């Protein structure tokens, strides 16, 4: 039988307006930690550009955002994507042997260059999880919240990332 029963409510799309804070407050609250996250993910040279691109992408999408409950995780997701783009660009340049690569490599964390280059080469989720765990010293639960994944997934990504780094460094 088709049609609505008498007790069925007509389906109505409820437009709930999400209350979004003024964008400047997001910059004020999160720019420093995102910068740290990006510096560890892609190196200080690329971090500034990635951070700017993160906020511009966020600003572009902002009015259409339908869930304002975890804006911090939302920003981290965008930052992670920008870091991945930068890492891909870097790999491509390296593969093509373009000039300027020497410069990019040299400008990376000079204290422990080989390790940070390996971090840059990790798959996106592992890279983000490793940075959250060891640069920010976060517990797996907090990492899960920031990355919008489960605590268990955070743990697995950290472990997989470390395992991979160890292999890279032993080579």
């Amino acid at each position, binding site marked *: 039988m088709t049609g609505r029963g008498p007790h069925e409510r007509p389906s109505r799309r409820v437009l709930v307006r999400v209350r*979004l804070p003024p964008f*400047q407050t997001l910059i004020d609250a999160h*720019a420093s930690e995102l910068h740290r996250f990006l510096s560890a993910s892609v190196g200080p040279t690329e971090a500034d550009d990635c951070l700017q691109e993160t906020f*511009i992408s966020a600003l572009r999408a902002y009015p259409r955002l339908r869930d304002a409950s975890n804006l911090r995780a939302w920003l981290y997701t965008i930052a992670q994507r920008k870091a991945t783009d930068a890492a891909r660009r870097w790999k491509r340049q390296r593969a093509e042997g373009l000039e300027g690569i020497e410069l990019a490599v040299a400008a990376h964390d000079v204290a422990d260059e080989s390790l940070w280059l390996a971090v840059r080469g990790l798959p996106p989720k592992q890279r983000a999880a490793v940075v959250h765990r060891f640069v920010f010293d976060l517990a797996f639960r907090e990492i899960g919240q920031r990355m919008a994944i489960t605590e268990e997934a955070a743990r697995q990504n950290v472990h997989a990332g470390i395992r991979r780094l160890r292999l890279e460094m032993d080579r």
Partner: protein
Amino acid sequence: MNDIERRLAAAAVPSLNVAGLNARLRERATRDGLLDVAYATADSPLGPLTVFVTPTGLLRIRYQDEPLEATLQETADRVSPRILEAPERTDVVRRELEEYFAGRRRSFDVPLDWRLVRGFAINVLRATSHIPFGAVTTYGAVATEAGSPRAYRAAGNALGSNPIPIVVPCHRVVHSGGGLGGYTGGIGRKKILLELEGSLPAGR
């Protein structure tokens, strides 16, 4: 903690140049048409004023006693959450205000954005914006000008919620009996403005 973990934790991460980032974001957002509301705060004889500007024009002026966060959130809700602190975008308004307070300007040239005003209040505030420097008028006269002679109480409410004080000169509206009436920014500020314009003997 094993060796790799220790080395990761020892990362020397450079600190962020916050001012530089904000400047680059403002410039880029403006270029890409992503800056819907710009604001900046500047000093004035009435205390710090925060000026809000959209691509259409001057949206609102905030007196210090209103909490900035509340004003920002209300602006985000009613106009757009794409709000950045961007002093250079408010330069024109701030310069005109400076000239006004220095006695070198009698009317404002900046275009206005009326988006925060609704209904009858639009008529009231538009009528108010035509009251010249140095003149005062009554609530009843403004209501009449707005099209509803008996709505002087509604006119009073509209003036009380004027989002663009000083530039839309609601301070020039007073009681017919000679009293100053109310003012959003407090009666002290209304007196200062009327004295500045010579409508009220100084120190009354």
